[in-house]
């Protein structure tokens, strides 16, 4: 299949803002047009080929190589296609995206999938802070789609999210699901403190014990049937979610009563 391959020659000195690296734009551009796309290196306007070697043209399948730690806004607001990054990537990866997939073989910066509406992001390494979160002042964070992080994540995962699924394979830090309004967060490796703080609705599932806020109340233990469906869906993403009664059950907590909210936190209790 026709592919566009970008290779970063050397790490930029200051931040490179490259929202033009997006399948929506590249699919209609010739190699020369892609090379000439404007990126911002600090305050200066530069061309993509000042930093990247560009192979291929007119494709919504983009492959990027190199340490893109200082390259931000990759795949911003994309609606289609595929972006694969071999190496680390900077902030705002796939922010506001509405479709397509992004895969990162490395670590990602903050605001992965910030306020995204649809699409899929898979980070094989660690993610930074505010995964799938709302930008400051916004009422809604992620509104749909899927984010899977195999490694650890920073604070405020899924802040104010409304819909969609976030899976954190490793450990998340504080304030997972802060002011969450819906959607599902799966924590395979547990989280630090204040999980589910101020949540209104939505579900946080943890496979490890959690230190909960005092404003959550225990309300039974069960094996919700919707988890079967979830489990199958997540299996396609390579995530194992236990649900069989033989394996154990989920303790349910509801809260946050400070709001007061109707969210739930399910903590897995394996059968002995």
């Amino acid at each position, binding site marked *: 299949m026709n592919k566009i391959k970008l290779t970063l020659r050397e790490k930029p000195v200051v931040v490179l803002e490259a929202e033009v690296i997006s399948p929506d734009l590249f699919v209609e551009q010739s190699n020369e047009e892609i090379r000439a796309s404007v990126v911002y290196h600090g305050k200066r306007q530069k061309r993509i080929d000042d930093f990247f070697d560009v192979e291929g043209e007119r494709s919504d399948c983009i492959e990027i190589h190199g340490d893109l730690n200082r390259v931000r806004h990759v795949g911003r607001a994309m609606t289609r296609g595929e972006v694969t990054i071999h190496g680390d990537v900077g902030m705002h990866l796939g922010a506001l995206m509405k479709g397509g997939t992004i895969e990162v073989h490395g670590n990602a910066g903050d605001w992965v999938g910030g306020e995204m509406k649809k699409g899929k992001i898979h980070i094989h390494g660690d993610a930074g802070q505010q995964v799938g979160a709302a*930008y*400051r*002042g*916004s*009422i809604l964070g992620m509104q749909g789609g899927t984010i899977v992080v195999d490694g650890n994540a920073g604070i405020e995962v899924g802040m104010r999210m409304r819909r969609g699924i976030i899976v954190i394979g490793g450990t998340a830090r504080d304030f997972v699901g802060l002011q969450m309004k819906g959607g599902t967060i799966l924590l395979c490796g547990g989280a630090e403190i204040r999980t589910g703080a101020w949540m209104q609705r939505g579900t946080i599932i943890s496979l490890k014990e959690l230190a909960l806020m005092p404003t959550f109340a225990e309300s039974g233990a069960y094996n919700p049937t919707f988890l079967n469906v979830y489990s199958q869906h997540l299996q396609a993403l390579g995530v194992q979610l236990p649900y069989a009664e033989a394996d154990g059950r989920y303790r349910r907590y509801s809260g946050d009563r400070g709001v007061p909210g109707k969210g739930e936190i399910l903590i897995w209790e394996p059968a002995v």
Partner: protein
Amino acid sequence: MRPRGCVPRGWQSENLKGPDRMLRITGGTVYDPANGINGEVRDLDVEDGKFVSSVTGGRTIDATGLVIFPEGVDVHTHVAGGSINFARAMTPEDHRRTQAFIRSQTRRSGLGGMAPTTFATGYLYAGMGFTTVNEAAVPVLSAPHTHEEIADIPIVDKSCLVLMANNEIMLDLLEAGEYERAKRMVAWHVWAAKAYGVKAVNPGGVAAWKWGKDAKQRSEPVEGYKNTTPGSIAASLAKIIDELGLPHPIHLHCNNLGAPGNVSTTLETMKHLEGHRAHLAHLQYHACGGDDWHAMKFEAAQLAEYFNAHPNMTTDAGAVLFGDTVTITADGPWQHLLYKLTGRKWGNLDVENETGCGIVPSSYRPSNLVNAVQWATGLELLLLIDDAWRVFLSTDHPNGACFWRYPEIIQLLMCADYRKECMAQLPPEIKNRITLPEIDRECMSFENCPVEMERIERAEIQQCIAA
């Protein structure tokens, strides 16, 4: 208001020497209702900031194909000071989604939106042909702040009104019957705040808000006082302002803003003010009939009728346009109510001795009956008041809508068909609550409609800014 058509901006004679004192504008289509010029293509000559019959030399501007009309004046807006600045801090999500002005060698950067930054405010107003804006609420304590912001609003002329009607010292003086001292105090405040006039917001109500209460009735004493009522405060202030000979009359924001049934409060206030000049601010918000939110209807016709018969008054419409905005007003109690209604963010800022302000982002939706009625009422007021020289176009920026959306209102006023189109999206329950469908006036008739002069569409604004 300033005499019309005398000093084009930037051409004050003291700044200019030699040929720069002269300016010639050729080929434009001129509209000037005050002087009976209706769409004539003619040349205009300016010398030392005044129109003259002819000049020789100086700069010439070719205005062929452009419309030349008198400047727009916004009598009631909130563009500078602590409250709008608080609103800016509260709405970063709006700043991100609005237009951005990019810095150049000659212009500063800025952001438009619900609460535009100071530089953007100047560019946006100038782009619409406005040259004078009046910041309508300045607490005396933070007046230096307001003036610092005003200094950062480029191009347009600025003035401001100092808030008085909840000043504790003043209320105490009125309570004690010390009218003369109250008068001197008003004069001092106008001087200290470097204000152009006096604004009275919800007389007595804000003072009561400081205890979490409101002043609902005009004739009942204000919380903490025995004799002083909202009605007596407004009447005394109007008298004081007339006696001091301030050019702008009392700028009154009546009690009970936005509450169902407040039209009776407003009419009663207008009667209190008979014999004095008065400017009633954002009248739309004070024209609600009915007993509660469900029975809410608007009584623009009733107000307009009274208003038409009383030449001592001027008003601005406080029109509403559908969309997102942020409401800011010194009317704290109303804002707390709005916060409870919308459940969104709420900011409140009380300033000692005089005022407070509340800030709530909100949206007006055509599907919401109350909003729809407000939308219609604003337009009804502008259309039903006969003497167009006494009614100003305003949205009480940013409360009803942002000032840069004025061209939309002008289009609504000028075009009955467009109005009908917009009315089609209103909920059906609205039928018996508004009179707008029966009005087919189009403000094209040039004799009595200064607003017509601001006839520019959005696209033209962009061009003006680009120029």
